[in-house]
């Protein structure tokens, strides 16, 4: 599946919910499916700055596809990063770099997109794209 297809799938899932409570409950549940980062990668250098909670992200590339693992000490943050990783994992670095993130708005999480918001969703997206850029330079 392309990033866009996955994003549309996520939008479909979230469209079933009637209120914030169901959306957040689902996000919390998604957090539990997050591909967890190995303990040895939970280092200070892998912490994403700008989050009130701690978020660690690690990336690896196999067969020109980038795979992400992550963790957070806050459950909602874990849900947010799980959604992002689901959209971006197992994709070609160039596709990750080019991907837009409007779907966040469409699943009713727009408030998390503000750059001043303490959860750092914007920082998370930036970090995932930075990994993709780094791997893309390896391929060039």
């Amino acid at each position, binding site marked *: 599946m392309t990033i866009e297809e996955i994003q549309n799938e996520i939008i479909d899932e979230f469209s079933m919910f009637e209120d*914030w409570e169901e959306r*957040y409950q689902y996000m919390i549940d998604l957090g539990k499916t997050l591909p967890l980062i190995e303990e040895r990668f939970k280092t200070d250098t892998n912490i994403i700055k700008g989050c*009130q909670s701690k978020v660690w992200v690690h990336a690896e590339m196999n067969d020109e596809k980038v795979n992400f693992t992550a963790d957070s000490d*806050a459950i*909602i*943050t874990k849900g947010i990063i799980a959604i992002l990783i689901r959209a971006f994992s197992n994709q070609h670095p160039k596709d990750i770099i080019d991907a837009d993130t409007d779907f966040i708005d469409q699943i009713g999480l727009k408030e998390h997109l503000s750059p001043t918001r303490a959860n750092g969703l914007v920082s998370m997206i930036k970090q995932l794209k930075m990994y993709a850029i780094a791997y893309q330079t390896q391929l060039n």
Partner: protein
Amino acid sequence: MLQSVFDVNTIRKDFPILERKVNGKSLIYFDNAATSQTPKQVIEVIVDYYSNYNANIHRGVHALSQEATDAYERARTKIQKHFNAKHAYEIIFTSGTTHGINLIANGFSSLLKKGDEIIVSALEHHSNIVPWQMLCERTGAILKVIPMSEEGELVLSEYDALLSTNTKLVFVNHISNALGTINPIQYIIDKAHGLGAAVLVDGAQSCPHIRPDVQDLDVDFYVCSAHKICGPTGVGMLYGKEEWLKKLPPYQGGGEMIAEVSFEKTTYADLPHKFEAGTPNVCGGIAFGAAIDYMNAIGFDAIANYENELLVYATKQLEQIENLKIYGTAKNKTSVISFNVGSIHPYDIGTILDKMGIAVRTGHHCAQPIMDFYKIPGTIRASFMFYNTKEEIDTFIASLKKAIMMLS
């Protein structure tokens, strides 16, 4: 205009913001320790200023400037009376508490020498630590810290032990922003004075709840911000004893603060203008005065009694929630409750509460050393003001229980 008997429902009508909805729910504002809300009596003063007599002050010959100057200086006198300073010129308008602290730290940089000591408390806000670290770097003075106990109280025996003839300055907050502990500042001041050290008290958190008498306390410097006591942001005050303010050099150069200027020499203006370079926050100062009038019309005793009722009421209910731990259990504290629930991250609870229209603070509250002491990343902090109600606390408790259920 204002009521002599404390009636929270009447008081709430003074605060337009309390009528707004957040995420479709009636706002419950429990982030008062960060900033208080503004009553219409203060908002009207701000509108009146910009509608009718906005002008630069102290230099104008025209009517508007005269009116604005009079109103600004009247506000200074109100603040002087409120804090019972001996002279109006001992009240310096600042941009807020942090500005006041930096002004004093900068002033002391010319008075301190290597080996002098500054004492701060472990309960300080970042803004009360960084300027002193910078001052110590500049002067070679040494920073010492009064430790805190598990309950969030300062260990006074340790304070006694830290004091010596090398101590030149003691800095302590009147009330801790993270835990709500009311510090025994009279004891701290008396002990410091016994060894000839000056004392600066950070009143940012105390001024909404307590009416300090600076002469009675015999404190050397006292600072606070208007926005914590129903006034606007961007303005505050520094009280300093005349003898100290005369001794300290000016902080910023500019207009207002000079008496005569030539290229050879500038003589500084008298107090308070020596410390008020440039065009001040005229409207903010006047509105600060209006906020003090508003609070005094309600009365600080009535405010303190009612807020304590809210504190006891909320604490009792929170204590019944399983795995909930309250940080800061000092015998003497104000209406601030810092807590965590089990291993749930404070950010998660804050986010869910926000979805239910409840504003609390989460995080380290700019008091990282306190969080390090308890070995936690942060807390959820609910802080109440006299316009909050027990019904709001009930809704908060129910919402908190729901958040815990969702997050467990």
